[in-house]
């Protein structure tokens, strides 16, 4: 199956299944889901962003392990946004699956996720071990900087979605479809 065929199949499958269309197409369904999506964004940036800034050296006197207790707040924001994000996707799949800004958003989400796992894989002992350093190791600082950039890129791509709505295809062939085929 080519990527294009996969996109077409995915949209058909979502349109066939689509459990949330009713709520999302009610008068305030979509606007409230969007507001919650913004709320989740704020929790995520507020918690993960401050943790990243701590790794980069702000508020050095706070133990990194103590700062890490903010991460569940960020995960709550992320959970809110995965839920509301899926609700958008399951209601208007073609507006996302064919949207180039959505493709970039997924890429930056993947970078943010891989980067976060790298943090735990490479820096756990130095940061949370028996004698943790107050200054994060250089590796962890690079990861923190990548995290901040990746999440900001996710926000930018998310905000740009509406300006990259797919139009009808006119004989272009990119890796992924970024237009509505007939």
């Amino acid at each position: 199956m080519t990527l294009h065929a996969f996109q077409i199949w995915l949209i058909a499958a979502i349109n066939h299944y689509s459990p949330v269309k009713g709520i999302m197409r009610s008068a305030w369904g979509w606007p409230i889901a969007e507001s919650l999506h913004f709320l989740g964004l704020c929790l995520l940036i507020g918690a993960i962003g401050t943790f990243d800034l701590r790794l980069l050296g702000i508020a050095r006197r706070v133990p990194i392990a103590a700062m890490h207790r903010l991460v569940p707040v960020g995960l709550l924001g992320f959970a809110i946004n995965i839920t509301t994000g899926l609700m958008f996707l399951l209601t208007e799949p073609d507006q996302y699956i064919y949207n180039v800004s959505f493709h970039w958003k997924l890429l930056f989400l993947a970078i943010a996720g891989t980067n976060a796992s790298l943090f735990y894989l490479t820096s756990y002992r130095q940061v949370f071990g028996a004698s943790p350093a107050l200054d994060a190791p250089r590796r962890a600082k690079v990861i923190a900087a990548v995290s901040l950039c990746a999440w900001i890129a996710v926000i930018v791509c998310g905000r740009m979605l509406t300006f990259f709505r797919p139009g009808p295809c006119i004989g272009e062939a990119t890796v992924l479809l970024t237009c509505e085929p007939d």
Partner: protein
Amino acid sequence: MNFDPFFIWLESTALSQWIVGDPSILAFPGILALHAIGMGFAAGLGAVLDLRILGVARGVPIGEFRRFLPVLWAGFWLNAVSGVLLLIGYPTKALTNPLFYVKLLLIAVAMTLLVRLDRRIRAGDADNPITMRALRRLAITSLICWGGAIFAGRLLAYTYSRLTAIE
């Protein structure tokens, strides 16, 4: 009072027409993106400070958490500037919508509470159980204001009655 002549004047300025009409993604879409980033840092850090005061991540000394506040202020000023640009782009849309004033009021209250919280934290109120109770009340109010401001801001796109004064 009829503000239409003012709206029409503002909407016909070169800046307003560039913001709304320029096809570059650095114009309207770029300003919106900056506004979303600023929101994340301003409302996000504001809410997380409130949550810290309310008992989340107790190991982080509240007095030390103040060191993140310059980032909150940077987000606030980014949004003041990007917000004014968006307002110049669509003055009628925002200023004829009562919800816009609710949003501004909520942000004004949240920022006033932030300044008061900061002043009390510097005075050592977080170290005393009695003054800490007052701090918690301020934090709850602040949290409600940030949440309300986020909702009000997003719902502006669904509640306006007029887009532009120029036909």
